[in-house]
């Protein structure tokens, strides 16, 4: 199955840039997710691939088949694009039975009766709904409707699957099950899939590749691990989960190794970067689970005070006062004393830029993960930085 390539899609409504040079490729058989807050352009991008939205500029190709090219005024109508689409509302036709819904793509292709019947049964079995073939959509539960929508999208054998927030109408428990099930099905079928969601857990659990979008552009792309651990920008770091930000000045400590100097963090926060950070304020992102709390004075760590602890079921969220900084840390144990030492996992701190600039789209802008181990040692405090700010999220 051929790859889908999207090249510099752009669209403005008035003065708002809805799509700003959106380019990406969906490799054959891969699961690619467009992730972003509402209004970031992810659904517009998906609908442009499906053929329901005509961007002002750019091109979309599916293998050798050019679906859209603004420069050459080429725009293949949606019905000729041979893609499978699952809509957010599922869009099951209420006046047709499940069987007729799934058989519709075959019926309009004038497939003969016997083959249609066989094929509908096959696809319905695939989504485990063979026994509900005669039911009407309103008689099915949300999860079942979602699977029928998927069966209908697959019935005519599309070469790619486009999913527009298909789980957003399911409750949390069902969503998790549907997620696993869809991921498994996609891998088995080996069908290239573009998935749109605003739920970062969903995106990380399912995707081969995540494209984080904001304000009409792709601000970060990579595997779920890359995007989570090396967000590249403050926006991506915040969007993908809880994150602490530390701002200070960088000091070079070795080849590719630096330390962030900030008050209350004696010895600085070590981090790695391929290129030296620009002079001036530098912001580091630190995930709460990368901070380890302990009371062992023999081990390294910054002195901190726990100001609040929230019980979250499978772990505790501690709010720490660390000099002028307020940080959040995740732990599995309840702490008995408010005075703790905070240790940072090696290589967990990464430089982020404050606002998503165009160069953020480069997929590998942050340091590689094998990071030299220089733990934070209480040593001589760095020069105080009056402009230092820090924020815990």
């Amino acid at each position: 199955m051929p790859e889908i390539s999207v090249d510099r899609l752009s669209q403005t409504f008035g003065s708002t840039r809805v799509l700003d040079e959106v380019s990406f490729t969906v490799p054959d058989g891969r699961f690619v997710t467009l992730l972003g807050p509402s209004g970031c352009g992810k659904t517009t991008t998906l609908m442009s691939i499906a053929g329901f939205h005509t961007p002002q500029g750019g091109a979309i190709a599916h293998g050798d088949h050019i679906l859209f090219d603004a420069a050459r005024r080429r725009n293949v109508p949606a019905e000729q694009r041979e893609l499978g689409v699952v809509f957010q509302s599922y869009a099951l036709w209420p006046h047709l039975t499940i069987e007729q819904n799934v058989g519709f793509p075959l019926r309009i292709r004038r497939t003969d009766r016997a083959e249609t019947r066989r094929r509908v049964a096959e696809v319905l079995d695939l989504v485990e709904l063979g026994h509900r073939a005669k039911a009407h959509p309103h008689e099915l539960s949300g999860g079942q409707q979602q699977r029928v929508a998927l069966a209908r999208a697959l019935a005519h054998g599309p070469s790619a699957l486009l999913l527009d927030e298909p789980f957003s109408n399911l409750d949390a428990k069902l969503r998790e099950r549907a997620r696993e099930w869809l991921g498994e099905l996609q891998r088995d079928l080996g069908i290239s899939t573009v998935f749109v969601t605003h739920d970062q857990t969903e995106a990380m659990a399912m995707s081969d590749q995540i494209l984080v979008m904001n304000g009409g552009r792709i601000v970060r792309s990579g595997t779920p691990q890359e995007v989570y651990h090396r967000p590249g920008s403050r926006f991506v770091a915040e969007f993908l989960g809880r994150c602490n930000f530390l701002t200070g000045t960088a000091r070079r400590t070795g080849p590719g190794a630096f330390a962030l100097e900030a008050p209350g963090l004696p010895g600085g926060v070590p981090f790695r970067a391929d290129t030296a950070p620009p002079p001036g304020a530098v912001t580091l992102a630190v995930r709460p689970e990368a901070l380890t709390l302990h009371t062992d004075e023999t081990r390294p760590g910054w002195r901190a005070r726990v100001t609040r602890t929230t019980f979250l079921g499978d772990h505790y969220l501690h709010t720490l006062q660390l000099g002028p900084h307020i940080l959040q840390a995740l732990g599995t144990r309840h702490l008995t004393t408010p005075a703790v030492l905070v240790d940072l996992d090696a290589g967990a701190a990464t430089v982020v830029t404050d606002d998503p600039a165009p160069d953020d789209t480069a997929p590998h802008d942050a340091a590689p993960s094998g990071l030299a181990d220089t733990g934070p040692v209480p040593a001589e405090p760095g020069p105080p930085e009056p402009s230092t700010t820090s924020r815990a999220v």
Partner: protein
Amino acid sequence: MTPHTLAAAPVAPRDRRRRLLPTAPGQYLVWAAVALLALGPLVPLVITSLLSKPYYLPGGVFSLDAYRQLLADPAFRQAALNTGVFALTATSLALLLGATFAILVTRTDLPGRRWLGPALLAPLLIPPLGLIVGWESLYGPAGYLTQLWHKNLHLPVWNLTSLPGMSVLGAVVTLPIAYVTCKAVLEGADGTLEDAVRASGGGTLRVLRTVTVPMLRTALLDSGMLILTLCLEVLGIPLFLGRPANIGFIASYLYDTWSNSVLPDPPIVSAGAILLLVVASALLIVRGRLLRHAGRYTAGTRATPPARLLRLGRWRRPAAALMAGFVAVTCVIPLLGLALMSSVTDLTTLVAPWHLWTTTNWQQVWDDPTLRRAITDSLIVASAGSVVTVALVTVATVIAGRSTFRLRRTLPALLVYPRATPGIVFGVGFFWLFLIVPWPGAMLRTSLWGELLALCVRNMTLSYIILAPALARISPELARAAASTGAGWWTTLRRITVPLLRPAIISALVLMFVTLVSDYDPVVFLSKPGTELLGTTMLQTWSKGLPGPVAALALIQVLLVALALAAGLGWTARKRQHHA
């Protein structure tokens, strides 16, 4: 979940799609049909109004004489003044009553409001000529109840054939528009606003004064402009009630000029029609302007009924009685009067009706080929017309709402405008169109199809206003889903959108049938011996001084309307049962 049996992606079955109808040409065809039908009659109207002689006479030159002549005619000035007074009085009365009834039905604990509400809509469905004849026969100067009141009870009497009298009837006919608009606003409004007044200590009157009535301001403006436009073009009321008292309206002035002119088809009628059209269009533009910011006056929240209905207290029963009395006096009794009049030789208080019992009127309807033809022709027009119109308007509505067709945004205006145009303007326009365009004009002019066309075009708006909101309620994703599976636009229309619109299509069919049976003003200039319709035949028979057969024909109209409504309701009920 069980492991999947298919290891590889399913192979696509062979594509045997036939591309029967390319999308755009078909859409252009529908658009062209709508544009031609809606705008076609206007062009000849403008041309003929600017000629010095009727179009077919040689030697006609461009001139504004027709307009000059019209404006100089004292009879026309008087008619214009009468129309203005009538329209303003009727509109104010209709708004006052409509809003009051809407508040009573939606916001108070009025007993019996479940059936009083729908009963108020009756004048929309009762054929207008039937209602006018019923009123005339009972409440007219020589009417049965007037006589009973005046001669037998010696009480002061009203005069229906005066401007105030006609205004009352005009208000009764147009009141449902104000009622429906206000009711929709009240039902869609946030009832907690009223609860908030109550919570801060306000009583019933304060709730009404501070929230409920101000909330209706836009609805009153909206429906008021609409009613005013409708009142300007009223033809039946002046023809039946105004003529004996010599009170002319613009519409009846044009009708009389047309019928009595020495020179057939005078340009002055075209000029008058154009003036009427200009005024009506101006009113609609003003209405659009005034309502531009209507969104500002509506609460953006979800509609919630107020926690408690307003208590009418000891006024509960009197209010309900008054409302029921209103429905009875305005609709029920006139229909009974029609029935009585169609069954007696003469409706008079001097002799008891059962002594005058006769079947002559009904016999005449059966025997007279003209009257019988009026019924069959009306049936043909209503059945064929409703089907064809609804089919065309359905496709046009879906193009307007669910396509990428280049000119789709012009369609709503084209579909709404015919009904906003005065009916007789359309009639004159079509007359000239058929005369000026020899093919197929000549064929249409001499057959029933010309009348059918005029009636259908004039009323296609009604189908649109039912279908458009219904289409808006269907998620656009349903049509997109069809396209994503490979269906072309026309296939999606046929297989998905039209089946989903079915309930609205049935309603539109019923409404079109009902309207085509009772509407008459677009065809008064088109009717000719051999192609009579119910409405025009009733006008002619009435002017011959034969009220009995007219009452019988009116009852037949009412019967046809009732049958169509019953069929529509029956279908809906069966569907609902099927789904339950």
